[in-house]
């Protein structure tokens, strides 16, 4: 019993002396509680939508205002051609394209039940589900004022308009199609950051750092030397996940796999850079682990992997935009499900590369050439 107590006291003293670990033990739960408690929202609103309005009658306009006033859709732009609409959807600039055909007003008044076409980016079914479900009643209620008195018969039993919804890319709303490619990014983030995160702290803890530092090397050499071997490991994981996605989950692979593999290289490098940077800051392996998790949790929760990106408040999206995983998810889903090519993914690739560069620069700057 005395020995047990001695150990308790000793551990307590050590933790108290280890300021950084102590701060993290307190800080991490608090920060994450605040961060994710507010951020997670499975009923995303204000989704960006575009409109293709070919009708010049008053009812088309009424419909437009009605949709715009609902909290689910934000019209970010007006489009003229079907091609433009497709591109905006592929790049992920909008989640919906709503087309109101020519002669909509006229046909409506004739009781011909004109059609309204809604194309939705359904890569992530949970992001679009609620909005689509609300559309029917939204259309009916916005046209209600126009269809009063003698026209009230038009509201009819089947509704005044014929609503057609085209969920694109993942028409059957199979969650796996969204989750499995995303998992590739998540697994890579976790593994890569963790592995290299321990790299430098392990040297310090085992006393081999003194030896390493007494040799003539530059920080870049040591840091890169610790990154490169794990790139291969990352590729092993990518391959495994792709094979599983194809044969286990039957995820469609519309796009170019070579392009995906190339982009994965940059993504892997970004995470490894993050890892070595952590290990130059952390004093021991436990701290490195904690920091890796501190990076990992927001990556999972704020990147659009777990919850629809657009369902998060603005500030959470800003944090998400910094994380490499956010961009990689868009790329993977884009390439596999939408068949995106170089043109569509290049912006996201640059954002990952920027992150990698900054992370590695911090690592090199923080690398200590001496023992003090």
């Amino acid at each position, binding site marked *: 019993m005395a020995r047990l107590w001695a150990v308790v006291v000793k551990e307590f003293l050590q933790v108290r002396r280890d300021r950084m670990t102590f701060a993290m033990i307190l800080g991490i739960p608090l920060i994450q509680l605040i961060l994710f408690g507010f951020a997670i929202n499975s009923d995303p609103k204000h989704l960006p939508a575009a409109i293709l309005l070919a009708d010049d009658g008053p009812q088309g306009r009424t419909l437009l205002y009605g949709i715009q006033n609902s909290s689910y859709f934000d019209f970010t732009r007006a489009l003229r051609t079907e091609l433009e609409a497709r591109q905006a959807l592929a790049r992920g600039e909008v989640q919906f394209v709503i087309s109101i055909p020519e002669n909509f007003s006229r046909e409506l008044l004739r009781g011909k039940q004109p059609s309204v076409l809604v194309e939705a980016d359904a890569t992530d079914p949970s992001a679009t589900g609620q909005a689509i479900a609300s559309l029917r009643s939204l259309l009916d209620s916005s046209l209600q004022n126009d269809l009063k008195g003698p026209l009230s018969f038009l509201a009819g039993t089947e509704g005044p308009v014929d609503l057609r919804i085209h969920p694109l890319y993942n028409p059957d709303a199979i969650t796996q199609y969204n989750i499995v490619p995303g998992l590739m990014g998540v697994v890579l983030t976790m593994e890569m950051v963790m592995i290299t995160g321990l790299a430098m702290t392990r040297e310090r803890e085992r006393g081999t750092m003194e030896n390493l530092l*007494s040799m*003539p090397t530059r920080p870049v050499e040591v840091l890169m030397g610790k990154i490169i071997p794990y790139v291969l490991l990352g590729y092993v994981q990518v391959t495994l996940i792709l094979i599983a996605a194809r044969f286990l989950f039957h995820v469609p692979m519309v796009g170019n796999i070579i392009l995906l593999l190339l982009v994965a290289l940059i993504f892997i490098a970004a995470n490894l850079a993050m890892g070595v940077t952590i290990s130059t800051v952390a004093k021991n392996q436990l701290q490195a682990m904690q920091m890796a998790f501190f990076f990992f949790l927001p990556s999972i929760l704020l990147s659009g992997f777990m919850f629809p990106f657009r369902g998060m408040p603005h500030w959470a999206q800003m944090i998400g935009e910094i994380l490499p995983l956010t961009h990689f998810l868009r790329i993977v889903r884009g390439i596999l499900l939408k068949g995106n090519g170089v043109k569509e993914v290049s912006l996201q690739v640059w954002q990952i590369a920027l992150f990698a560069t900054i992370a590695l620069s911090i690592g090199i700057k923080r690398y200590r050439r*001496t023992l*003090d």
Partner: protein
Amino acid sequence: MSDALAIDVRGMTKRFGRLTAVDHIDLQVRAGEICGFLGPNGSGKTTFIRMLCGLLRPDDGQGTCLGENVITGSEEIKRQVGYMTQRFSFWEDLSIVENLDFVARMYSVKNRREAVRSSIERLGLGERQKQLAGQLSGGWKQRLALAACMIHDPKLLLLDEPTAGVDPKARRDFWEEIHRLAAEGLTFLIATHYMDEAERCHRLAYIAKGKLLTHGTVSEVIAEAHLTTWSVSGPDLLALSDQLQGRPGVQQAVAFGNALHVSGGDAAALEQAIQPFRTSPHEWRQVESGLEDVFIHLMDETHHNALE
């Protein structure tokens, strides 16, 4: 041997918070010389060596190491220095060859394979070269570390207690090798706690509490201490030692095997102090003070000074 100085530093100082671990140490070591570096535990030997090879930034001090500035030229110094750490610092999860190979690569050794092979051969580790370094016994780890820090043909070797835990035969081989290399012009700074090793050095530097107390050849160091030593043999030396301790003129009474060494700085006072005890069955004779007498004397002095 040339007169060029391999190590020439002045005022080297290192502070850790309020503790001054190394306090304005000046040290000159000529090329081809073996300099023994002695001092009690915690006196600052390791800290001083780390400053020489650029592992710690000195708070004060200047000078050169192999002609390079110790403050600004540490990258160049690292290339030409072999540093053996006090604590085993090779990779325990790598095998012997892998460790040597890694070191050779880090120093861009020419004919790397050949260098590694001959290093293993000299070590006599031929059959065990695939064994993990972590599985070696303490003494063998030490020998591996020594081989590894010499693989790039350094001009200066900074060895921090290289023979701690090494068996006597291996230690003798080690010192023969060191003398052979010194004759070829290599310079050594060797931290050690062994007196027999100290006596094999060309020169000694003794530090305590971060300060350099004496510096010179073995006989210079002994002469400088002005110590008179008597050796007593006979029964009940322990009781005798108790009685002698603390008498005026007696600075220390230390057991050496079957004899007791009684020393003091003032020869006359010492002789007077031991006079009452010079009876049979004890046999007294004056001996030349040895290094150990001197070092114990130095340690006691710094201890007393610290208490005052």
